[in-house]
Each structure stands twice: as structure tokens, then as C-alpha cells.
């Protein structure tokens, strides 16, 4: 009998914590942030994004120890993160956004797949979308898609910075891209970036993403006289392209967009670490003008919460390699901007007001630089912040032959 009373008390306690008045007399409401990312197809990218969202929510405020939330306008808002797998499928991404609408989500943090089809559904529900991986040029348009924001290097920035870096070297470049949305958007950006310097382009070739042996395409690039390759593809295809070149003793320099840093590239080539040496990728700078301290603090915070992101490979000296949490930094900053916007308009009830406030607020980003959007620009990473890093012994360091990159510190990847 005493046990039954105890059970009833427990149920009442749980119910009281689920909504309605909090113990302090204020209201309690739950806000859901949906993470739509390819958990099944690109687990590293997706999980890092989800962790960045969780940390961003926690660092925006806590209503109890380890419980993300904040108080505004007499209401306590608890933040909840709902992970939905997009599987890199636009159709699944559409289902995810419909689910987000049904859940009355306050925001969708998205890897980028399917946004062309999903943004208008989210817009009608007053839900901002924060793209934190894909850089496709048409994905973000403040006038036509006022609810779409992005914190990630743009394809435009990556492609033009690659052109600025490589064309003065006098290289004949083969532009290779895969058949995923990521590759197709990258191909468009490369075409634009190299359109004024066609003499620098040896050839342009499609790499089928489902094909592990890319020898035919790599041989065609070689026969076309290429002295450098830009491979704009998802990680597994980059690894396959490298394997096809190196296994034929072709030491051609290989350049990639940020996907070149995806751990899957090194994992796939773990049996031939020398094939990774020299691989150069373009990415968003991880550190601010004032130095690397802020990013190191963020990386420590991430590591304390989740442990190190082990790449699954070792240096030649046998030291395990870890991945810096770059793709946690962008969603982290987006969530903090979102919460700052909600606070600035005294709560999330007026969705249009929140969207509008997203153009007004500024936060200190995880790397120490300011993050902000405005009415004319919904891209949080500017083109001039794209840098280059090169792999040596399974870790990457900023290159020395690019003015911006040469000023950047190396990030520890052996912790």
C-alpha cells in the first residue's frame, strides 16, 4: 500500500515537470530543435552536427544542471534536440521537415540535403533552417528564402579560393566531381570560378559515387594532360580517386573541398597512409584573427562532453589521430544565434519576429570571431575565410604558400 502511494507520487512529480507551471510559479514550455542530417550515410558529419547543436543549446543557458533552456518573459523554455536521419535523400529530408512542422520545431539544423524542396514548407510554418555543411550557391537567398541561413563555407568561396590558389601556380587542372548533390553543386561553383581562366582547365569529368574503381576516370584525366586534380566529391569518392591515382604511381597533387578532411578518407586509405600525404583541402578557417585560443576552448569543451573524435588511424609513430570538431562549431554558433534571437523578442511565440531577429543579433562564435547574419546576407562564413590545409602523416596543417593560411596556427590532432 505504501509502495502504491510512492508510485503515485512519482507519477505526479513527472507530470508536474512536463509542462504547466513550474515550481517557481512561471510557465514551462518545451522547444524542439530538429537536426536533419545523414546519420546513416555520413555518420561522422551527422553526429558532429548533432553534438554541436546539443552543446550550443547547453551553452545558451541551462534550466537545471545539464538541461538546456532559458527563461524569458516569465516562461522557462527547455530545449530538446530531435535527430532525424536524412540518408542523403531529398525525399527523406522532406519527410523530416514535415515531422519538424508537426512537432512545432523552433528550428531545423540541416546538413543541406533537400533544402531546395523543404525550405518553403518550413517557411510556411515560420521555422528557420540553419544549413551547417553544404555550401551550394542557390541554397541560401535572403530575399527568396528568408528563413534559410547557413554557417559553413560556401561553394562559391571554396571554388574561387581554389582558383586563386591554383591558377597562379600554372597548373593544368582536371575538375572532377561526383554525382551527389554535394558534387553537382560543387561542379557548378568550379565552372564559375574557372570560367575566366579556361586555359587552366585540362578536363572536366564525372565520378560515379557508387563506383569504387575510378581508374578509368583518373586515366582520362592523366591523358588530358592534368598536372593537378580538384576532386569535389563526398569523402568515399575522394578516397577512391586518390587510390586510383596513387596505385598507378601518379603523384599528381590532389585538392578537395572540405570533404577531404572527412575521417572516412583516411579510414579508407589506412593501409596506404602515404597516399594521403599531400592531399590538400579547402575549408573554413578554424581560428580567429586573434589566435586559436577560443577554438581550443571549444574543442576542449567538446572533448569533455563526448570524448575525442578518433579518426581510427595512427601516425607513423603510432599515435592515434583525432578530428577537430569543425562541423560541431557551425551548428553550435547557429543555435546560439537562434536563442539570442528568441531572447531578443521575448519568446518564440511570434515566429516572424524570431526570423526577423535572426538578422539582427550577433554572438561570439566558437572560434572567437563574431557570427551574425543581416537582411542582405544569410551566410555566416565569408569567402575570404576559406583556407587550405595539407595532410602529412594523417594530420593536416595550414599550408604556407597561401597568405591567409600561412598566418593560421596548426590545430592539435593527437589528443
Amino acid at each position, binding site marked *: 500500500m505504501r509502495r502504491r502511494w510512492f508510485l503515485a507520487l512519482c507519477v505526479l512529480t513527472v507530470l508536474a515537470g512536463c509542462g504547466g507551471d513550474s515550481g517557481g510559479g512561471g510557465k514551462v514550455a518545451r522547444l524542439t530543435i530538429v537536426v536533419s542530417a545523414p546519420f546513416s550515410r555520413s555518420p561522422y558529419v551527422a553526429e558532429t552536427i548533432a553534438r554541436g547543436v546539443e552543446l550550443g543549446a547547453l551553452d545558451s543557458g541551462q534550466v537545471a544542471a545539464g538541461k538546456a533552456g532559458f527563461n524569458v518573459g516569465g516562461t522557462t523554455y527547455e530545449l530538446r534536440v530531435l535527430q532525424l536521419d536524412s540518408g542523403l535523400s531529398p525525399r527523406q529530408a522532406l519527410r523530416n521537415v514535415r515531422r519538424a512542422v508537426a512537432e512545432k520545431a523552433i528550428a531545423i539544423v540541416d546538413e543541406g540535403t533537400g533544402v531546395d524542396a523543404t525550405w518553403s514548407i518550413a517557411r510556411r510554418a515560420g521555422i528557420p533552417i540553419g544549413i551547417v555543411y553544404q555550401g551550394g550557391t542557390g541554397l541560401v537567398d535572403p530575399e527568396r528564402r528568408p528563413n534559410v541561413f547557413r554557417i559553413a563555407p560556401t561553394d562559391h568561396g571554396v571554388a574561387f579560393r581554389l582558383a586563386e590558389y591554383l591558377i597562379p601556380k600554372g597548373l593544368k587542372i582536371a575538375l572532377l566531381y561526383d554525382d551527389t548533390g554535394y558534387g553537382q553543386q560543387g561542379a557548378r561553383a568550379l565552372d564559375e570560378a574557372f570560367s575566366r581562366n579556361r586555359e587552366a582547365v585540362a578536363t572536366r569529368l564525372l565520378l560515379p559515387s557508387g563506383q569504387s574503381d575510378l581508374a578509368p576516370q583518373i586515366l582520362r584525366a592523366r591523358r588530358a594532360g592534368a598536372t593537378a586534380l580538384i576532386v569535389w566529391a563526398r569523402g568515399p569518392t575522394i578516397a577512391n580517386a586518390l587510390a586510383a591515382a596513387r596505385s598507378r604511381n601518379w603523384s599528381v597533387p590532389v585538392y578537395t573541398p572540405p570533404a577531404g578532411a572527412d575521417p572516412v578518407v583516411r579510414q579508407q586509405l589506412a593501409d596506404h597512409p602515404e597516399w594521403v600525404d599531400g592531399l590538400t583541402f579547402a575549408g573554413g578557417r578554424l581560428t580567429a584573427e586573434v589566435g586559436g585560443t577560443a577554438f581550443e576552448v571549444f574543442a576542449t569543451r567538446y572533448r569533455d562532453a563526448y570524448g575525442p573524435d578518433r579518426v581510427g588511424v595512427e601516425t607513423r609513430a603510432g599515435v592515434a589521430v583525432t578530428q577537430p570538431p569543425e562541423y560541431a562549431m557551425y551548428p553550435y554558433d547557429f543555435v546560439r544565434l537562434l536563442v539570442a534571437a528568441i531572447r531578443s523578442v521575448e519568446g518564440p511565440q511570434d515566429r516572424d519576429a524570431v526570423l526577423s531577429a535572426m538578422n539582427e543579433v550577433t554572438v561570439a562564435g566558437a572560434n572567437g570571431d563574431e557570427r551574425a547574419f543581416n537582411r542582405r546576407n544569410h551566410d555566416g562564413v565569408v*569567402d575570404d575565410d576559406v583556407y587550405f590545409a595539407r595532410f602529412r602523416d594523417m594530420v593536416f596543417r595550414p599550408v604556407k604558400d597561401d597568405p591567409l593560411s600561412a598566418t593560421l596556427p596548426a590545430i592539435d590532432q593527437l589528443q
Partner: protein
Amino acid sequence: MRTASALLALLLTLLVTGCGGADEKRAREPGTVTCGGTPLEQEPDLPAGFPKPAATTYLSAERRGPTTVVDGFLAGELGDAYEAYREAFESAGYSILFDELEAADAEISYRDPARSTSGQVALRERCVEAGRVAVHITARPA
């Protein structure tokens, strides 16, 4: 005698090292750059009507693939240089995509009114020469 000579040499050394001007001292600081040289005779290949605040001098311009890169300096302090560029962009009808003023540097990312060019003006307070702010401009097809 030998002691007196050594003392004299030491005094001379101290005098010489101590006499370097502020510019010379700054030149020894890491991260500083020379903001001097011969001004460009021709205007660089920047978009038509690209803002050029008074007291700005262009020293070099180069083409890196599709992008024009210009370096120079602006006579004055960082905060003044930042405000001068901000105002000049706004009055020329440029869109400011992002801007940031920090303790020793500032950036203004822009897009021209025709939406055909975008880039950045980066201002750095690290000139060897006192009273000058380094100006670094990029202009690439938007």
C-alpha cells in the same frame, strides 16, 4: 685602458640600439608589415566606383586567377579607417555582407550594387610605419 674601451663600446652599443625610432622597434614585432613603397600609378582593377576613402594609398595590385588583390595603407587609426570604409561603401550603394571591428583588425565584406563582384576589405593595425593601417582588398566575381 682596456676596461675603458670596453665600457665605451658598451655605451655606444646601448646608444645605437636604444636610438632606433618607434618604427624600427615596431618592425621587430612579429606580424608587422611594411606599409610603404611607391604608390600605384594606375588605378587597380576594382569594380567601378569602388570606395577609396581619403588618405588611402594603393601600393600593389595583382591578379590571382579570377580575383583582384590590392594592398596598400590608410593614414590614420584603425577605428577611423573602419568607419571611413563603412561610410564609403554605404554611400556608394554597396551591400555590407558582414563587418567586424576588433582590437587590432577589422573586416568589411561587401557586394557591389550590380551584384557582380564581392570580396572584403581587411584592415590591420600592424604597419611598421606609425599612423598607418594596412589595407588588403579582394574583389572576385560574385
